[in-house]
């Protein structure tokens, strides 16, 4: 590590007005984009690439990383306030964020999300700075066997997010995995559950499904509650004196932030696995290791901190294979790879030899992007928190039309609007009969990854699945997954018994 060059790079980046300006602009755009259901950081980065043509490399990377980090946090705003995750990475934030909002703590939830996002992002950036070649080497050992077991590990979290009934959670998860098989089979192109309907060939798009399950289902349920007289108008009586969480709260959530940030960084570094998986793994891990797992999902700051630090930790993690190996860790870094190539720089091992000052400046820019996200987020917390005060009778139709537009904008397809409505109804009915929605979401994310790697591994090993026992990392993941499942079942039984005893009293 060339410390003086690293220091010079930080000074260079943190004193450049243009880089700071572009990064702040990117963070603002990212937060606003991320807050709109359906608009993702990937879309924002892709849209702004042409605008970065005329800029120097670091300014353009600052703009794009600003959008990336801002978008990651922005997704949590709508998840917390309106039960509609703006981005897939914010899907787990609503598990505790939305109940906090319902308790009248929207501002607190937002400030915890912002602070945790910042800390997770900084942790990711630090790991990227000091350990990137090491982490990249480890991530590259992941073949189909390890990816399959990583997916299984992700799925093992389902037990801990299933709520009261594990059976219902697992039914929902298998249903989600089944939904993920709709369309053409990824290996042989065989049509599955198409029924002659051509738009179904590519399966159900993830984001319209996500918007339907959460946002549209919430609108339908909200209308029912208003007509039945069960809906209470929330008034933002919460006084937000500090836009950052107080020291007492930070004292409670710091273990979740650190573990979330590290989980996010590690999962982000594995090509093909991103923030959407990391947030659930982090949530499951932190819930399982909590002294009070029964409080998770009822609106506690730890739940928000665990997920938000994980998704921003991913930003640093995903940059590791990009810079060290030239392999993008997720969709956003794939677009960033294009930006590097456009500027005549080829990321990869040789970049550390030929372009070390640029590598260090990219590290510094990621740190700056996280700081920019914090600054813009601080300025916006009070404003965002006011959204809950908008009369629900006006808010629900607005959420509906904005969400349906978000669903349309992904593929510019009216079919996706239909998918969104269909899953809105599915989500409404599932909520009504207490089937948890998050397992479906996790299954939709991990289903294709699970199937593709399962088929690939079995094919490569001539049909011998048990060859997986010779892969130590895969076996390690399997053991951890089984332990997670057993521990979560034990925890859930304990929670159910305690709740039954409380009810008896």
């Amino acid at each position, binding site marked *: 590590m060339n410390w003086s060059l690293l220091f010079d790079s930080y000074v260079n980046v943190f004193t450049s007005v243009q880089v700071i300006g572009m990064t702040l602009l990117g963070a603002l755009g990212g937060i606003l984009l991320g807050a709109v259901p359906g*608009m993702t950081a990937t*879309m924002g980065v892709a*849209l702004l690439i042409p605008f970065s043509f005329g800029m120097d490399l670091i300014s353009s990377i600052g703009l794009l990383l600003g959008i990336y980090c801002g978008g990651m946090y922005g997704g949590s705003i709508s998840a917390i306030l309106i039960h509609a995750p703006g981005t897939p990475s914010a899907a787990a934030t609503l598990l505790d964020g939305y109940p906090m909002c319902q308790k009248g703590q929207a501002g607190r939830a937002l400030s915890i999300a912002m602070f945790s996002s910042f800390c997770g992002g900084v942790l990711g950036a630090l790991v990227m700075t000091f350990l990137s070649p090491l982490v990249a080497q480890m991530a590259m050992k992941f073949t189909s066997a390890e990816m399959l077991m990583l997916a299984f590990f992700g799925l093992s979290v389902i037990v801990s997010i299933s709520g*009261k009934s594990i*059976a219902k959670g*697992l*039914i929902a998860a*298998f249903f989600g*995995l*089944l939904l993920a*098989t709709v369309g053409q*089979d990824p*290996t*042989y192109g*065989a*049509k*599955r*559950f198409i029924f002659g309907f051509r738009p179904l060939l590519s399966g159900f798009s993830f984001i319209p499904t996500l918007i339907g399950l959460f946002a*549209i289902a919430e*609108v*339908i349920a909200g*209308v*029912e*509650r*208003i*007509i*039945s007289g*069960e809906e209470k108008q929330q008034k933002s009586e919460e006084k937000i004196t500090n836009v950052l969480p107080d020291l007492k709260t930070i004292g409670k959530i710091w273990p979740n932030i650190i573990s979330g940030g590290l989980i996010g960084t590690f999962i982000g570094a594995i090509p093909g696995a991103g923030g959407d998986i990391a947030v659930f793994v982090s949530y499951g891990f932190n819930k399982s290791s909590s002294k009070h797992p029964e409080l998770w999902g009822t609106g506690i700051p730890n739940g928000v901190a665990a997920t938000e630090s994980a998704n921003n930790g991913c930003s640093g993690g995903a940059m590791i294979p990009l810079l060290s190996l030239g392999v993008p860790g997720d969709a956003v870094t794939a677009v960033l790879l294009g930006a590097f190539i456009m500027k005549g720089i080829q990321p990869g091992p040789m970049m550390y030899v030929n372009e070390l000052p640029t590598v260090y400046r990219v590290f510094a820019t990621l740190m700056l992007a996280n700081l920019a996200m914090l600054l813009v987020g601080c300025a916006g917390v009070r404003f965002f928190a006011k959204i809950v005060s908008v009369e629900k*009778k*006006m808010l*629900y*139709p*607005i959420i*509906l*039309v*904005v969400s*349906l*537009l978000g669903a*349309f*904008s992904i593929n*510019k397809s*009216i079919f996706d*609007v239909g998918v969104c*409505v269909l899953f*809105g*109804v599915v989500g*409404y009915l599932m909520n*009504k*009969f207490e*089937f948890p929605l998050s397992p479906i979401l996790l299954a939709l994310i991990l289903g294709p990854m699970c*199937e593709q790697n*399962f*088929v690939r591994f079995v*094919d490569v090993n*001539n*049909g011998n699945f048990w060859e997986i026992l010779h892969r130590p990392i895969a076996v390690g993941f399997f053991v951890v997954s089984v332990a997670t499942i057993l521990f979560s079942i034990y925890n859930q039984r304990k929670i159910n018994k305690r*709740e*039954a005893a409380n*009810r*008896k009293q």
Partner: protein
Amino acid sequence: MKKTQTKAFANLICSLLLLIFEVWAYVETTGFRVHKRAFVQPATFPQIMICGMFIFTVILFLQSLLKVTRGMKPEDPDNELSPSINPFTHRGVAAAMFVVVLCVLYTYLFDKLGYVLDSACISIIIMYLIGKRDLKVIIPISIIVPLIMWFVFYKLLTVNIPMGVLQPLRELVDKL
């Protein structure tokens, strides 16, 4: 409270419906193309998932059946009143179903009416339905919000959104 009104009974009915769905889905998978040289057939993964779903549905079915037939402790959460989905007895459910019908109509008319007009119509109807009766407020908001969203998506994010009968508005914006 009758047994048929409890959550346990609702779970029983849900699990029965799910079992029917699983049998149907499994039968569907038997019609998928077979590749002679493949170790894992296109139907294998969905069939594993259906089997997994089947096992836990049977567990839910048996749990609910035992609760309904043997009776439940008063503190059992499944002994509570089940939510209704009957639109004829519950006005809230009827309103929710009406919103679903509106959403289906919205999807059908999205291309024909265009996003702005379609969204304005559905917003006005839903706001009116759920008790916001001040037309001076609901009409401008229902028009302005979709219009702003269209402008942001069309001009700033370059996403082409159907404008339907308001196509001249797009041409006007393009000219300006």
